[in-house]
């Protein structure tokens, strides 16, 4: 572990309701000016390294799908408890976050739809069992059939329709819960890249 320099001194301006604290940029030491003609492209280098990992992605997606199916199997056996609900949510949420990076954007979309059901349904025990099961089956099928280019349209359509049914269900069951309704209908506000 490399030895670090002492952090620079802070400047504090005090106001009636708050303090503004500035410190000379401690990370300034890592900024380097380079020639405009510099051809080194760290982003391209990282994308290449990511492409080098892509041989692992199918195996990783299979592991994530197994985890999702196992979480669902426990719910079918024991019903929804805080622990079983959380495990299903985390498994779906990880697929939502990872699948597009691994080249499975349609599986990510179906997983996002499942996450929305788990997060916004007022009572998970009253969610039609088929709605959850169809999402899980769809995610598994999309991942299984991924190598088949002739199934891409089917996967897109399946994912789109599941989202439509899930949103319709959530809109109805949350009609008296405006804060959930707002979250369901609101677009993402994450800044674009």
């Amino acid at each position: 572990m490399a030895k670090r320099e002492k952090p620079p001194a802070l400047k504090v301006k005090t106001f009636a309701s708050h303090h503004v604290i500035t410190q000379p940029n401690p990370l300034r030491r890592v900024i380097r000016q380079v020639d405009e003609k510099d051809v080194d492209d760290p982003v391209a280098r990282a994308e290449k390294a990511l492409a080098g990992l892509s041989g692992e992605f199918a195996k990783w997606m299979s592991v994530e799908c197994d985890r999702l199916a196992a979480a669902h199997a426990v719910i079918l056996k024991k019903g929804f408890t805080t622990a079983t609900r959380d495990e299903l949510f985390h498994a779906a949420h990880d697929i939502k976050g990872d699948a597009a990076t691994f080249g499975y954007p349609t599986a990510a979309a179906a997983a996002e739809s499942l996450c929305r059901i788990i997060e916004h349904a007022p009572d998970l025990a009253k969610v039609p069992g088929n709605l959850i099961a169809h999402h899980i089956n769809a995610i598994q099928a999309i991942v299984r059939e991924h190598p088949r280019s002739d199934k891409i349209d089917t996967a897109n359509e399946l994912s789109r329709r599941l989202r439509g049914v899930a949103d319709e269900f959530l809109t109805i069951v949350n009609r008296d819960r405006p804060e959930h309704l707002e979250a369901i209908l609101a677009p993402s506000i994450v800044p674009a890249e």
Partner: protein
Amino acid sequence: MYRIDFNKLRFLVCDDNPHMRRILRTLLHSFGAREVYESEDGATALEMYSHYVPDIVITDWSMPIFDGLELAQMIRQPDAKGNPYAPIIMLTGHSEKRRVTLARDAGVTEFLAKPISAKGLYQRVLNVVANPRPFIKTKNYFGPDRRRNNSTTYIGEERRTGGEVEVMQQPSLLDKARVAG
């Protein structure tokens, strides 16, 4: 044109998903980073934060023991022994407005929604390195300034009140003793 010397930066990556940790490690090493420490839960991350004193923390939101939001709140303790000012990049599958606001109010510096891309991660790191924001301390917030722009068209309520106060400099006991002596 500016570049970041990633090999001089120390990262702490916190994500319970081993695949995502592998992706992050691969990206950071490709950018040139050599020191990348990893943890799979918030509690271990906090220990590693104190031990390794990273320059930048990259954390997931949903994690066991305590989550990324709680980790950010624990790091942003103005009177803590460790460094409460390190940039925190929250990398998460959550992308709803409510979540982004919660992360901001916990003292998160940058928010990056999954799916992760090399470009997105590089830009967030570049931003925290090249454009650090001052920290604001109020009764109930300590973290990077949540106002990213000085908008002249803002018409809402001004929540920060009062001009700069005069701070009476009290001589230390040692100085007083020296004068008396």
